[in-house]
């Protein structure tokens, strides 16, 4: 991994609210095409770390470098530029409720990328088609199922040509029967070489597509390594124990 050039480098990211520390000196690097998975108990800082990476939550301290360029965390322009290059997928989709699936995608293309109406629509339809929802273009979020909403959200993020995709528990708010369609889209992205960092509890994503697992607890990365290293047989790593628990859960749920 080290011989590949890192696109994104986050060094010693810290964040606290009041006297409660959420992240303490967390460092993450992502090389092109690399997929890292964040796991760990809730409240461990996974979500905050992801939101710090694109500065939706501005870190109290630390350094973020995107393709060699250091982001000045106190400059709005720098933050906007960073976010334009980093896509984000949320647990609860966050589609714009007043816009159709199509316009959810075109709005940022037009406002941020300054495409004209026709170009934006073309691009949006292409992305909707990629996630298998071309026929839902004119529907509003309230008329879509959870899985469809998340796929629109993924299409919306991809339309911006992000260099990195952040996924914050993309399947956690979904009905078990709808998880499959979203996982399929994410696996498709992995095959295409999308660079991703994702918080998830979905074993199939953790063990199949992750290049590296980062186990977070109490605002720190306490363990990291390849799935083979951490989840291999007879391993007593924290990640292994945690994933065993997840497995047990999904087994009992049947």
């Amino acid at each position: 991994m080290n011989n590949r050039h890192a696109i994104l480098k986050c060094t010693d990211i810290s964040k606290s609210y009041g006297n409660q520390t959420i992240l303490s000196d967390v460092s993450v690097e992502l090389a092109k095409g690399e997929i890292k998975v964040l796991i760990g108990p809730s409240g461990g800082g996974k979500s905050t770390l992801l939101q710090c990476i694109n500065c939706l939550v501005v870190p109290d301290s630390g350094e973020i470098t995107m393709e060699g360029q250091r982001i000045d965390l106190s400059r709005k322009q720098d933050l906007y530029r960073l976010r334009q290059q980093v896509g984000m997928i949320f647990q609860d989709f966050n589609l714009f409720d007043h816009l159709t699936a199509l316009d959810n995608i075109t709005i940022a293309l037009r406002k941020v990328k300054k495409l004209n109406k026709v170009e934006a629509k073309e691009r949006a339809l292409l992305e909707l088609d990629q996630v298998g929802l071309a026929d839902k273009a004119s529907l509003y979020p309230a008329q879509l199922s959870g899985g469809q909403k998340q796929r629109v959200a993924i299409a919306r993020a991809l339309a911006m040509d992000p260099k990195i995709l952040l996924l914050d528990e993309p399947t956690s708010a979904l009905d078990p029967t709808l998880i499959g369609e979203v996982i399929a889209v994410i696996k498709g992205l992995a095959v295409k070489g999308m660079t991703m960092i994702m918080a998830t509890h979905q074993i199939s994503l953790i063990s199949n597509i992750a290049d590296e697992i980062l186990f977070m607890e109490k605002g720190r990365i306490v363990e990291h390594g390849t799935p083979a290293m951490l989840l291999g047989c007879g391993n007593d790593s924290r990640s292994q124990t945690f994933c065993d628990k997840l497995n047990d859960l999904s087994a009992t749920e049947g």
Partner: protein
Amino acid sequence: MPNALSVVIDALPYLLQGSLLTVGIVIAAMSLGLIIGTFMAVGLVYGNKIVRYLLTVYLWIFRGVPVVVLLFLFYFGIFNFLGLQFSAFTAVTIVLGMITGAYQANIFRGAILSLPQGQFKAASGLGMTDGQAIQSIILPQILRISIPAWSNEFSIILKDSALAFVIGAPEIMARTQFVASRTYQHLSMYITAGIIYFILTWAGVMALRKLEQHVHIPGYSYNGNQ
């Protein structure tokens, strides 16, 4: 009673001319209030400490002082002091606009706070500036949510506009009083004025309900049971 009826009938065109002025005052004041209220709400939610403080002071003044006092204060006091020669119509419109602006600001502020935070985050996450997110994502949603409360505000301002007669704007109330005091038909004239106000309120509220249905987001319930 035939006398009362004929006075009302004779006065009706004169009163209806006054209603045009009333409608003009209300539309202009509500529009001014919409602009003031929108900017204020954005400032109250997203502004820095100083902006929020200044806007809160404005809010307290315009909510805390009676309409008549503000009307006199601005028409005879502040506008005069600034050397502004406003007609009674313009003065009433501006003062009512500033008052309803304060109330509308609070309506819109509540609506912004009721939106899930994820809406703004998603917009930011796509690289939109704060201004773009507010303009294309937040405002279109909160203005829709606010229509019922806004319609309430409209009906209040419509009736507050009757106070314009105290500074001599020739609207419904001023004209009614003029006719009533000359013909001594107080009862019938004020009943007529009341009916005109009622009809205007009803028509406006109905129009806003139509607007609400027109901009309704498909798939969302607005009757609570759909």
